[in-house]
């Protein structure tokens, strides 16, 4: 078993030099290695966009689907084979915009998956339009008078939905990102990790320096199980808190509630319905 997550050939990586995605890829590979996760048991799902290309660049299984739709297949994969470690990974536009409904209901469903969101507060691949998390007032080719909407606050939404694990990191701190990713993967239930990441080409505001200046790490005595405190933290705007903001361990888990794993843990692909039992069901509808 090779658990390096590295390919034995050189990859043609489609990211711009200096992109924050490189750091997230490195942190994820490190986290999975340190957790000694067998790549044969790791599946990444993603949507569309530059962040969504991440699964291409580490040696594991992946399902690179449609824009905004990383979360539904991730939940179904986990539900079909709970032995797999499933990570849904995409950008802010993909997850919070196009896939907003799945983000909300994925949190409610609470499948045991990790959801990594590369949050660069801009649309990169379509060349610089506003994303749901773009700062108010930013001018773009479309928003020629500047955006006017309140940026989407994924942390507050997740806490409001009583998500079972809510964290935010800044890729400027690789080690911290890696540590939080490890916690998220190990967490049983849905785990959101919103990763601040600069787009070095299209976002001139939210740079490495800006993120450093506008974030701080939660103190060690911060209690992530206190939901009221988590709400307070989630709406801080001057400086965004980094770390595990909210955590709840006792939520029912989607795949465990389906009934198919009550009697055994075997993945669905190993099972066959009993033919005689189907005939028996049909016979219930007989007249005699």
């Amino acid at each position, binding site marked *: 078993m090779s658990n390096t997550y590295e390919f034995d050939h050189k990859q043609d990586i489609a990211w711009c030099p200096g992109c924050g995605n490189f750091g997230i890829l490195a942190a994820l590979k490190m986290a999975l290695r340190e957790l000694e996760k067998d790549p044969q048991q790791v599946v990444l799902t993603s949507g569309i966009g530059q962040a969504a290309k991440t699964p291409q660049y580490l040696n594991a299984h992946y399902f690179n*689907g449609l824009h905004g739709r990383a979360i539904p297949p991730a939940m179904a994969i986990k539900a079909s084979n709970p032995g797999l470690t499933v990570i849904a990974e995409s950008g802010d536009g993909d997850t919070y915009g196009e896939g907003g*409904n799945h983000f909300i209901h994925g949190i409610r469903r609470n499948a045991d998956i990790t959801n990594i969101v590369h949050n660069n507060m801009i649309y990169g691949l379509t060349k610089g339009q506003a994303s749901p998390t773009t700062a108010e007032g930013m001018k773009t080719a479309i928003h020629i008078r500047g955006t006017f909407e309140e940026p989407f606050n994924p942390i507050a939404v997740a806490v409001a939905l009583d998500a079972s694990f809510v964290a935010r990191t800044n890729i400027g701190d690789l080690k911290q990102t890696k540590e939080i990713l490890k916690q998220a993967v190990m967490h049983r239930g849905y785990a959101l990790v919103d990763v601040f990441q600069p787009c070095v080409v299209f976002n001139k505001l939210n740079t490495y320096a800006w993120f450093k200046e506008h974030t701080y790490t939660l103190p060690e005595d911060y209690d992530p199980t206190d939901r009221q405190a988590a709400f307070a933290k989630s709406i801080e705007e001057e400086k965004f808190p980094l770390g595990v903001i909210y955590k709840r361990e006792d939520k029912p888990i989607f795949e465990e509630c389906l009934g198919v794993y009550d009697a055994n843990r075997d993945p669905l692909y190993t099972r*066959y*319905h009993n033919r005689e039992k189907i005939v028996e069901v*049909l016979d219930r509808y007989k007249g005699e």
Partner: protein
Amino acid sequence: MVKNKTFAEDVSIVFGGEAGQGIATIEQMCATILHKEGFHTFSVSEYMSRVRGGSNSTEIRVSNGKKNAFVERIDILFPLDCAVSGHLAGRISSDTLIIADETQSGKCAEAREVVRVPFLETAEASGGKIYLNVVMAGFVLALFEVSDSAADDFLKNKFGRKGEEVVKQNMEAVRKGWALGEKMRKEQGLQIVLERRDQEKSTVLLNGEMAISIGAVAGGCDFIASYPMSPSTGVFNGIAELSRDFDIAVEQAEDEIAAINMGLGAWYAGARAIISTSGGGFALMAEAVSLAGMIESPMVLHIAQRPGPATGLPTQTEQGDLNFVLHAGHGEFPRVILAPGTIEDGVVLTQRAFDLADKFQVPVFVLTDQFYMDMHLGAQSDMMPIEKYQKYFVETDEQYLRYKYTSDGLSPRGIPGFGKGFVCVDSDEHEENGHITESHETRVQMVDKRMARLEMIREEAILAELVGPQDFSTLIVGWGSTYGVMREAFEAVEKPGTAFLHIKQVYPLGADVLEYVGRASRVVVVENNITGQFADLLTKETGRKVDDRIVQYDGTPFSVEKLTEEFENLG
């Protein structure tokens, strides 16, 4: 007074009333019990899109000649409310016997003679108005000379969960209704003397919903994610019900987009998924159908058609989404469309849908409609064998490539966690290993590989069913849910040199269909839409021009009367 009326060949009994009055229970009860007693029974309901009120009806047709279709004719009408006789006005003739409660008959059908029966009073005496439906059902059972205890088992099953008292009260209500019917049969000579056959009892009485649901489970379905939408919801309910007996993951998705993307995730991980939806819901799934095409994922989709565009007539019937299902999803990729006509077809074709989807790694559609979903009919077990199913995924090795070029054009499908390889699927154009490419050379190879499966599927096409002489000159062609009505009308007109062809695999069409239409001097296509979507497809697939189109698009199914007249007029 009825004055000696006897039905000896075929009787159409219609119950009409508001939503919430329990008409569905009457239908279920009468159909189940009459079937149990050996009568050949067909029933179908039509209803409005509301929870309470409106005007709904159900037709229970019992016959000696195995009539399996909707007739406009109403022999006996039981109005549960006043509005219904207006709603059904076009179907009430001077031969229609209206049997109504005393308190409502005056308002219900002015200027018509109505036979009055104290249904409401009897219901009240049984415990309340709520028992009106079972009182009426008991009445009908008596007309068939079925015993007053015939409904007991049905009521125990139906109401057992609500407690013994409820079951007991229902039994009493049925007996009281039965006594009223018995009185009318004996004193006024209203008689239904139809054949009882043991072989009817050995058939399996199912509606379209359960036929598709059981077919899915027989096909190995172990995952369903869907979003409720009439008239497709019955299959979602049916499979959920079957998940009591079988290992099936059932999830109500937040929307149709999530539903199908979950389905694709499930297939990717080795499960066998189905989604059930109707036109509007399916519209939201189009992008994911295209994804199934690109990642060469199996997928089974049940689409129950209803009249569109947009919300249309939510609870009524049409075959108007064939073109949409045929073309949904951007880009070019193969797909399969199956359309059951009989209950047996529903079980057999849905089973087959899973096999085709898995074997050829394509989306397979089972296309039904509201009429098919809601019809109850006896099906022969020997005509719907439950096959042992095969799963086609392979154990991967270290060199595994998900999109490997092979001599037969099919890339073996691996699943994550089974074997030593990596299973990488991508909605972008990809190399053999699943990784993104923008190479034009790879593009052509991959498009060719994906499309090659269409001809492989065509070669294994499910045969069409020919009814009538082999040496026909006129060929009347239908597809999907019109089977029963077309067959009855076809057999009624007895035109020499004419045959009826029922298409079960609508796309791609098999060589047999090409051959049949090739030697017909006249081709007539019957379908429940305005433009003749299948007629156009037939021409596109076979090159044969369609001479006549018989279409209907008012939201109702074809009736035997209408098609008989149309076939007579073919000259």
